[in-house]
């Protein structure tokens, strides 16, 4: 089920919240589990098997890890649990890609490539489950005492499909004790509406523009840069909007989820960008990949290698496509370069005057290969950006580009970089914000009926 649909806003959510607040506290976690099951099954019920296999397997692994007194058993329980999660993820996400590439390498179609449907949200679930097993083994997280609570955590519908990537240790106590109040509920509702507006108005408002530019076989310089800019705004407002909705939904039922974005488009380096973009993923990658690989503890070369490896694996996590590998190399490589520059002689990686615009250019260039469906498409866009197909917008592109697309693009850009612009603060009363956002979201909700979140595909 998608948050920005009438079935969720006018069907699932009111029914869930009404039941939640009618039930006694003890029954609420069970209701969350039941509702999350229905929420996930709304996509297709047979995928529940995968969901519960991963959650159940991870619970079992954590249970063994916490109970055993033998170090060897503990290590093997962790290995088996992590490998189980990775194996499921690999099978569903990478089998087709791997076999397809093997066939290409072998110059034929000797290997049968099965049609595998990737269960939505699997990548997020696998990462959450791995962090649980590892944290329990490290003694960083309490072991889940009740299977029902762990299943409710694993399937928690506000964040089930596209994060934030939660850790059990951050939420365990919230499953036992949560505060509920009208104040929290109002704050949650407002946050949800903000996220809904980000998604329905800005992200969906510029999406057609980005789609059209990326569909051009030979984009000009202006078209390619316009497409990259539009996609940058679309992706940020789509994913950040989703995260806001998840955080708001959590608040409505007493959960406090960590923030997932902190003005990423104001960053002055790629390193800073990753402290502000998809924070739950970047901290996961740091804690469970970069640091176990050695982090920055074993000299410069290994630090650069670890940065590159971490970002490449982070790229592959997004999808089974060479485009994500290149995107990971791009970001990992830039982080390594920035690390080298900082280590060498200064506190900033890039000269202060150009640091922000340069970083934004890096980010935009990265989004091109991230958005492109194939490497060929990405190369075509890059060629366009360099002016290989002329500089100006062609007449058809101007005709098809609407005023509202440009207005939403401008709004998105301004909001994204607002902290850098020192704009006069305009803060209408919460009640007015509430009313305006509600009306706009209600109308947009009816119009934009088919707009899944970009991160659902991961």
């Amino acid at each position: 089920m998608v948050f920005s649909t009438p079935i969720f806003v006018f069907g699932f959510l009111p029914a869930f919240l009404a039941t939640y607040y009618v039930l006694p506290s003890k029954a609420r976690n069970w209701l969350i589990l039941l509702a999350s099951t229905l929420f996930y099954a709304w996509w297709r019920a047979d995928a529940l098997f995968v969901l519960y296999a991963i959650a159940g397997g991870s619970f079992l692994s954590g249970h063994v890890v916490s109970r055993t007194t033998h170090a060897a058993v503990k290590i093997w329980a962790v290995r088996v649990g992590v490998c189980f999660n990775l194996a499921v993820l690999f099978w569903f996400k990478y089998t087709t890609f791997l076999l397809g590439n093997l066939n290409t390498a072998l110059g034929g179609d000797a290997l049968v490539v099965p049609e595998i449907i990737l269960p939505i949200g699997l990548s997020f679930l696998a990462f959450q489950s791995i962090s649980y097993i590892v944290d329990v083994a490290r003694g960083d997280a309490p072991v889940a005492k009740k299977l029902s609570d762990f299943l409710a955590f694993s399937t928690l519908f506000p964040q089930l499909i596209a994060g934030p990537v939660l850790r059990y240790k951050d939420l365990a106590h919230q499953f036992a004790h949560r505060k509920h109040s009208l104040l929290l509920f109002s704050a949650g509702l407002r946050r949800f509406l903000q996220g809904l507006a980000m998604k329905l108005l800005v992200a969906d408002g510029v999406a057609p523009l980005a789609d059209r530019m990326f569909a051009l076989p030979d984009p000009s310089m202006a078209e390619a840069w316009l497409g990259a800019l539009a996609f940058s705004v679309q992706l940020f407002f789509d994913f950040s909007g989703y995260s806001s909705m998840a955080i708001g939904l959590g608040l409505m039922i007493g959960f406090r989820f960590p923030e997932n974005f902190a003005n990423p488009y104001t960053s002055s380096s790629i390193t800073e960008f990753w402290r502000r973009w998809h924070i739950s993923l970047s901290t996961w990658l740091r804690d469970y990949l970069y640091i176990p690989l050695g982090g920055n503890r074993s000299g410069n070369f290994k630090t650069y290698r670890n940065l590159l490896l971490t970002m490449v694996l982070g790229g592959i996590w997004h999808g089974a496509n060479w485009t994500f590998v290149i995107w990971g190399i791009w970001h990992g490589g830039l982080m390594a370069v920035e690390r080298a520059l900082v280590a060498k002689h200064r506190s900033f990686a890039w000269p202060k005057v150009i640091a922000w615009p340069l970083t934004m250019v890096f980010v935009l260039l990265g989004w091109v290969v991230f958005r492109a469906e194939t490497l060929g498409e990405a190369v075509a866009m890059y060629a366009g950006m360099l002016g290989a197909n002329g500089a100006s917008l062609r007449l058809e592109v101007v005709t098809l580009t609407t005023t509202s697309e440009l207005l939403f693009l401008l709004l998105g850009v301004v909001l994204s970089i607002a902290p850098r612009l020192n704009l006069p603060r305009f803060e209408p009363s919460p009640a007015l914000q509430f009313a305006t956002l509600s009306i706009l979201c209600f109308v947009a909700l009816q119009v934009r009926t088919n707009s899944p979140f970009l991160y659902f595909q991961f």
Partner: protein
Amino acid sequence: MQSHSDTISTLCIVALTVVFSLGAISNTHAGDPTHGWLKGTYQRGYESRFERSVPANDGAVALWAAVKWSLFQEMSTGAVASKDGWLFTAEEFSEPGETRDLREELARVGKILAKYGISLVPVIVPDKARMHEHHLARGRSEKFASRYDRALSSIKAAGLVGVDLRDALSFPDSFKRTDTHWSPEGARRAALEIAAVVSIYDFPHTNVTTVETGSVLFEGDLIAFVPTGQFRARVGPPREYIKTFETSVTPAGDLFQEVTIPVALVGTSFSAKQEFHFEGFLKQALQADVLNASSVGQGPFVPMDTFLDEISKLSSLPSVVVWEIPERFLSSQR
């Protein structure tokens, strides 16, 4: 500290959501939940019924469309509005999603038809944006501007006789203002132009008469991209009318003589949609009966594939096949 206005606004939103929720849930037919739930088909069905049941759904859609139309003369993705209230499909400004190489297709189809002794007459219907360029705020780039000439060259290179419809459709109302397609008058003039070319082939003629029967309100296909609903009378787009026609064919020969239809028409909605009456005008112009094998929504290539697949089942073969191909289905790249 929760202010009173915060509390009131929260409660108002909750109350409104509950009202909409109860309205939508009570108006949505549950369907049969025992079928399709495993793969999600039941869920998709329920969801689309639910969306239509949300109170004020139509009003919200109409309001959104009316605001965009009033402020920016803007339509939904898929169509563009230009000067004087003229609407155009976006397909005439972008590469076709699925296309085939025209030269190869003409060679393939011509060869198959030739085996049956049938002549092929391809007809490229020029874009509305080409014939009504003066209604566009901006023109189109060279690739699109030269597409029609390239298509005619492909026809010539395939050794076929083509029809250039540009002169025939060069008059103010050759296309409908709110529709992708030609007007009945445009269809009539196109039919005359085609008949002039097809008449080089020998086929039996019959008596055909066409009469104008009146005029009715016309809802162009592009109106779907600006669903202003109840606000349309105030904000537009303005309505338009279309003339209606009837064509009658007097069977030739004896009552028990085998019926032969000498010309087949294969094509798209330009030929298949009754309101433009192209089939009738073609019969009138040819003074011959026409087998219409056109279909809506499949482009020009699929109907021809279907026709070729079923040609052997025809009781009598036509002498000529007119293949109507809208320009927008051809690539501008070659």
